[in-house]
């Protein structure tokens, strides 16, 4: 039953969100090139480079806009009591934790000294990816894309009227903030776009991870179907 749900997850994921290139098309068995490590390392290398570049651009752009407007903002600590959507922050934290745990698990399972049977490794990594990507990441991404980012745009990027800060005199200089409303809106716009780009990148890598998971799970059975009877 558990395996059935994992298969359903993999196929539902692949059908609903087609990966950039199907591993089966890239390394067809007939040509003898069907080797997961080739697909995997080629993809991972390009991923790392473009990620590093994107990450650099993201940090640079956000640092620029941050430097531009941050002096206008009061100390975040003094206004944290006015923020109420902590579930969003904690969901991101939960995902950060899960990515770290997934990395540790994969490293442990890939260790040459590991005595864990191959079939158990398949099950563990598939189940782990099912939880981290299929449950946790998809949960965050779907909510952000469909609900949260549109909400932020609607509330923070009202082009027709200046933003009115909900500040008391003790919190900060509301008049100063209001006079720089267009600059602040511009920075929010840039930051939101960058965050959405970053999320799209994470989603692409997640799809690649699911493809790798598929390869890990099915390659031996595709290459040597009879072996499944011996395991």
């Amino acid at each position: 039953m558990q395996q059935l749900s994992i298969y359903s997850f993999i196929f539902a994921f692949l059908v609903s969100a087609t990966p950039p290139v199907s591993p089966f098309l890239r390394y067809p068995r007939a040509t003898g090139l069907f080797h997961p490590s080739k697909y995997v390392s080629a993809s991972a290398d390009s991923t790392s480079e473009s990620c590093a570049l994107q990450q650099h651009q993201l940090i640079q752009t956000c640092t620029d806009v941050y430097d531009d407007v941050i002096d206008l903002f009061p100390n975040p600590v003094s206004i944290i009591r006015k923020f109420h959507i902590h579930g969003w922050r904690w969901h991101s934290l939960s995902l950060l934790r899960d990515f770290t745990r997934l990395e540790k698990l994969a490293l442990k399972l890939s260790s040459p000294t590991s005595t864990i049977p191959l079939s158990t490794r398949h099950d563990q990594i598939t189940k782990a990816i099912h939880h981290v990507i299929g449950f946790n990441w998809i949960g965050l991404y779907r909510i952000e894309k469909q609900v949260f980012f549109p909400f932020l745009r609607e509330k923070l990027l009202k082009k027709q009227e200046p933003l009115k800060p909900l500040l008391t005199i003790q919190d900060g200089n509301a008049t100063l903030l209001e006079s720089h409303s267009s600059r602040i809106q511009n920075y929010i716009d840039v930051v939101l776009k960058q965050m959405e780009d970053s999320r799209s990148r994470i989603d692409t890598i997640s799809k690649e991870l699911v493809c790798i998971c598929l390869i890990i799970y099915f390659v031996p059975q595709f290459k040597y179907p009879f072996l499944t009877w011996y395991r």
Partner: protein
Amino acid sequence: MRIQTSQSDSDSQREALLSVAKSASTLHSLLRSSYDIQERLIVPAVALYVTEKDQNAISFHVLRSLGIFESRKHLVGMREAVWEYTQSRKTLSDAIDERSLFNEVIPSIPRNLLPRWKRTLYDPQASVLDEI
């Protein structure tokens, strides 16, 4: 013949698993940068310009969108993350105790049910990640 084949499979699987580890690390780095930005820039902006009523409305909307069972599992994951991360570092600011904030924000009934939800809903799905 069978032994050679198994060895080859094992090597392929090992490389694929290493790639999973590498991708997971990349995902962590990407999300980490994004998380820092949302903490430093988006959180203050929302606090400054979005009313409490609107913020609570969107929280409720998110909860409904996630679904009742899914949101329970997510809540357990959030609690685990808050407790684990704040052991080593503060999150938003040194002045904020994230654990106290969690206890303050999450109503007592679901908070008391967290150990049960962890045992019955979260662990069967996520405990594989703890087998390290």
